[in-house]
């Protein structure tokens, strides 16, 4: 608790890891996002965000890549800092290519505090828009974690060191219209 007057900033509708309410980019901003295959079947990735004020999250969303298939399944969720699942969409078929796919969730009050936005996918056939990085440490410095076998998203996450050179674009919103 700061000893000086503290007026928290307010997130603007959406939360994502590269915003000021995430970790922001670390290192250079290497290249624009691109369509990339999911690294491993049933893997979950956890990207950190924070909010200084309470927020009611009503939807989560990701960006589908160039290659999609309705047989590919995705699960999105929110975890507390200690790895407890607060809410998840449940297994959902991947939607259209190169579009933002929304996942309606139970309206969930989070914050203030630190959280993870989680994405899991059951196949490497799926592609998503992701941020390429020049080095794995850039992603580690963002605070992203992974879990090898985590589809559907587990009630408790077991965080492991991230070993990829890109980070998926995943977001949360307080507004029904995305």
């Amino acid at each position: 608790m700061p000893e000086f007057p503290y007026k928290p900033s307010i997130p603007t509708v959406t939360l994502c890891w590269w915003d000021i309410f995430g970790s922001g980019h670390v290192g250079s901003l290497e290249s624009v996002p691109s369509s990339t295959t999911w690294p491993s079947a049933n893997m979950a990735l956890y990207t950190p965000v924070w909010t200084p004020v309470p927020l009611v999250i009503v939807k989560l969303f990701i960006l589908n890549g160039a290659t999609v298939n309705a047989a590919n399944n995705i699960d999105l969720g929110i975890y507390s800092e200690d790895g407890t699942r607060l809410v998840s969409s449940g297994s959902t078929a991947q939607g259209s290519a190169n579009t933002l796919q929304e996942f309606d969730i139970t309206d969930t009050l989070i914050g203030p505090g630190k959280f993870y936005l989680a994405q899991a996918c059951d196949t490497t056939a799926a592609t998503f828009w992701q941020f390429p990085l020049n080095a794995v440490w850039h992603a580690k410095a963002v605070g992203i974690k992974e879990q090898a076998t985590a589809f559907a998203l587990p009630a408790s996450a077991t965080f492991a060191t991230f070993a990829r050179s890109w980070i998926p674009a995943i977001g949360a919103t307080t507004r029904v219209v995305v």
Partner: protein
Amino acid sequence: MGIFPSLYLGGSMVIHPFSPNSIGQKIVGQQTTFATGLADGASAVWPAANDALFIPFSLSEPVLVKRLGWTNGATVAGNVDCGIYDTAGVRLLSTGTTAQSGTSAIQSVDVTDTQLGPGLFYMALASDSATATFNRYIASDVMFVKFTGMAKQATAFVLPATATLATVTANYIPTILIFTQGLV
């Protein structure tokens, strides 16, 4: 204004989409470099006549808004309306219809001094012309514009008393300016 150091956003004299308390980091953060992000600013025609675009921003402390503005592109035409909405879609203030004037320059309008904040708001811009141009920025893809929390409304000129927000369809981020200064 506090005399102690404080950690908050919203005290800037000018607030625009690229301010840290708006969508700035979400846009800059997905560009290749800061230079690329800035280089993408260019004159481009308004997405559609009578469209309004809404860009979220937050205030951690009250500010007194004195002027609203935007940046015109290389060709001016028709009329513009610029305003501010709350998250319920209620219009709090606006310039009213204003003939677009002055190419490649900031155009601003004096508004009734209005105190805003703290809270979450939308800055809004509408044009009734499909040939009017504004200096606008783009994201890597329209999907990343959606990521920012931006929204649109068709058939929204002049800016309506109550906005009905819809999903954005254009990769188009205008430079809307909220001045707490009387002099631009």
